[in-house]
């Protein structure tokens, strides 16, 4: 940063927390988390390519309690970023900007991400991931 004393625009610390800023911050946070996660996707593919032993290592960790907790968090981050990404695209097309709409579709994304995560893990449970 240039060390000039100049007025700065207000940043996070001066705002009351509200859904508009939270959805934005969380989109960025989940984007960064998913970018890190993408490296694990590649790791898993390389393990699958290298043979049964390395693949068994992947499934063992993924199926352990910490692996499941991690995958659950990953599912939510993906669900949130996916839904809020769609919200971004809708906004880019020029819709949903009125304050009331913006607040409503923000909450829609938040609760939608919970529902999507729960639905995914419901299917996973039915397919026996916890067995």
């Amino acid at each position: 940063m240039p060390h000039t004393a100049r007025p700065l625009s207000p940043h996070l610390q001066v705002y009351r927390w509200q859904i508009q800023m939270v959805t934005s911050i969380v989109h960025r946070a989940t984007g960064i988390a998913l970018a890190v996660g993408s490296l694990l996707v590649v790791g898993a593919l390389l393990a699958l390519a290298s043979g049964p032993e390395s693949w068994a290592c992947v499934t063992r960790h993924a199926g352990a309690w910490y692996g499941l907790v991690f995958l659950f968090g990953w599912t939510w981050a993906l669900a949130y970023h996916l839904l809020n990404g769609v919200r971004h695209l809708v906004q880019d097309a020029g819709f949903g900007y009125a304050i009331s709409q913006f607040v409503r579709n923000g909450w829609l994304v938040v609760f939608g991400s919970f529902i999507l995560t729960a639905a995914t893990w419901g299917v996973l449970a039915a397919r026996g991931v916890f067995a």
Partner: protein
Amino acid sequence: MSTPNRLRSPLKRAIGLGSAKYGTQHFVVQRISAVALFFLVIYVVGLLVSLVGADYATARATVAHPCHAVLLCAFLVAMFWHAQLGLQVVIEDYVHAPGLALVVQMLVRFACVLAALAGLFAIVRIAAGASA
């Protein structure tokens, strides 16, 4: 402005600088990759869920199927492209020392390209049926 330049429009100095270089390209590619990822993420999650409990041979054979192999490659390319563009903006927002910013931007690009290539390599290796 000094006298000899008085009749020149400031536009002359602006051309080729700043945002005039790429315009909206970053924005557009970020959105295109987002649309692609919308479909590809749903597909990949569905594929993973369908593979729960599958043994090694099944998992491998699934990825080796031409349709899955191609779609998974598309997923990797879209994901790392989108991630690079996204992280670029995050770095632009928070890293302000020009030298450091340049280095970090380069490292993120290298990491994204390398990871994408490694993932594509793994899929090709599986699809080509090379034994472990």
